[in-house]
């Protein structure tokens, strides 16, 4: 496993922890892109998903659109966006947001659908307004699935942001793409390992969050 020890020494090299190309900066960039993308995608997809789940309308369309978006190849969408809209932060972000929408949308409407209809009916019958039913009953009970959707979306964006380095985005994917260009395998491996650790840490945080925010049932 000498290639791994090479990667380890690459990682422990102090020079790789400083400056624009250093790990802290790249990690910060990567987390930043992820946070921005998930925030925008959540703002779009979750209210929409909640509406679909609460009213039951357009569900067929939502399922079809979710499936279609999931089938879109990441690299294709990224390259297309950049060629259409040029270099910068916006084009890849648009692509990343579009790809993050399916799990968020699905999490929201599946979450609401998982709530027992009898409970919702009883809530209406004791005199809650529609907004109260949504906010006091449906959303709290749907939380596990909604959070699950956000968790999936975060992991998805971490992965796609890595690939976005190919079209010039910063972040941890740079180590892979730049390393590939100069055949520096230790660099690629080091970057890969850091990304994997980041993904696992974020996933762990969400696991804890889901446990904490899930209502006692």
């Amino acid at each position, binding site marked *: *496993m000498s*290639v*791994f020890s090479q*990667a380890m020494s690459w990682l422990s090299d102090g020079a790789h922890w400083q400056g624009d190309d250093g790990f802290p900066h790249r990690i910060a960039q990567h987390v930043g892109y992820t946070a921005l993308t998930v925030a925008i995608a959540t703002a779009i997809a979750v209210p929409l998903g909640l509406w679909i789940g609460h009213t039951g309308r357009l569900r067929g369309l939502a399922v079809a659109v979710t*499936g279609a978006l*999931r*089938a*879109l*190849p*990441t*690299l*294709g*969408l990224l*390259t*297309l966006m*950049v*060629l*259409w809209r040029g270099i910068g932060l916006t084009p890849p972000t648009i692509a990343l947001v579009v790809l993050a929408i399916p799990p968020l949308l699905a999490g929201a409407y599946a979450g609401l659908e998982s709530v027992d209809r009898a409970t919702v009916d009883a809530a209406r019958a004791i005199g809650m307004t529609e907004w109260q039913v949504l906010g006091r009953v449906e959303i709290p009970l749907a939380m596990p699935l909604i959070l699950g959707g956000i968790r999936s979306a975060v*992991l998805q964006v*971490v*992965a796609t942001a*890595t*690939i976005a380095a*190919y*079209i010039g985005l910063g972040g941890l*994917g740079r180590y*892979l*793409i730049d390393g*590939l260009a100069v055949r520096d*395998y230790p660099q*690629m*491996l080091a*970057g*890969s*390992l850091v*990304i*994997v650790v980041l*993904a*696992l840490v974020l*996933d762990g945080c969400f696991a804890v969050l889901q446990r904490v925010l899930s209502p006692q049932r």
Partner: protein
Amino acid sequence: MPTAGRRACWATTPTPEASASVTWFLDNLSYIRGLAWRHLWLSVLPVALGFVIAVPIGWYAARSRRIGGALLTIGSLVYTIPSLPLLVIIPGLLGTSFLDPTNVVLVLTIYAVAVMLRSAADGFASVPRAVVDAARASGYARWQQVLLVELPLAGPVLLAGVRVVSVSTVSLVTIAPLIGVANLGSLFTDGFQRYFTTEIIIGVLCVVVLALVLDLLWVLIGRLAMPWLRVSTR
């Protein structure tokens, strides 16, 4: 990353400004077909392998709560790992050459197993206990119960899992050109490097069509394997 084979297919290089998309498509049909064929293999193998591996494990996971829980946790953990980094790590682990398509198939199979494991466990868990009991009481041997009763009844859920894995695998394969394994995704990298939007769009369309075709294939296999589901009940 152009491969040698590709350059041989192209006698003349059409300029982006000059060709209409359809013309470009028809001119390079054999090239695209070659890529599509590779893409097909790179997609079907992991799905099939993933199915074959995940179903027995999923069956076991559905029976034993503790071990099943642990297996599913491992599965979801594996699925957490982003694709490109894993494609980089695996050659390092196995010592295989970077450009070897085996890496891609291996990594995609790992993902397929991780996803299908959940479907398999859910599928077998959804088989009503009463039916299996009745089979046992009728004199079915253990292996007959599993193969002739549990597996077919878990079929619909398994099929749903296969279809999900198939779509995501077809999409994931497009990453492989970044580490030198050619497939329809090469149309993206190539189109990007040459500022040729049409090539990318054609690539996206081909990938989507391929995903649809495969999906139909699985549905068809499902229909043949589970004829009792087609009978409508009144």
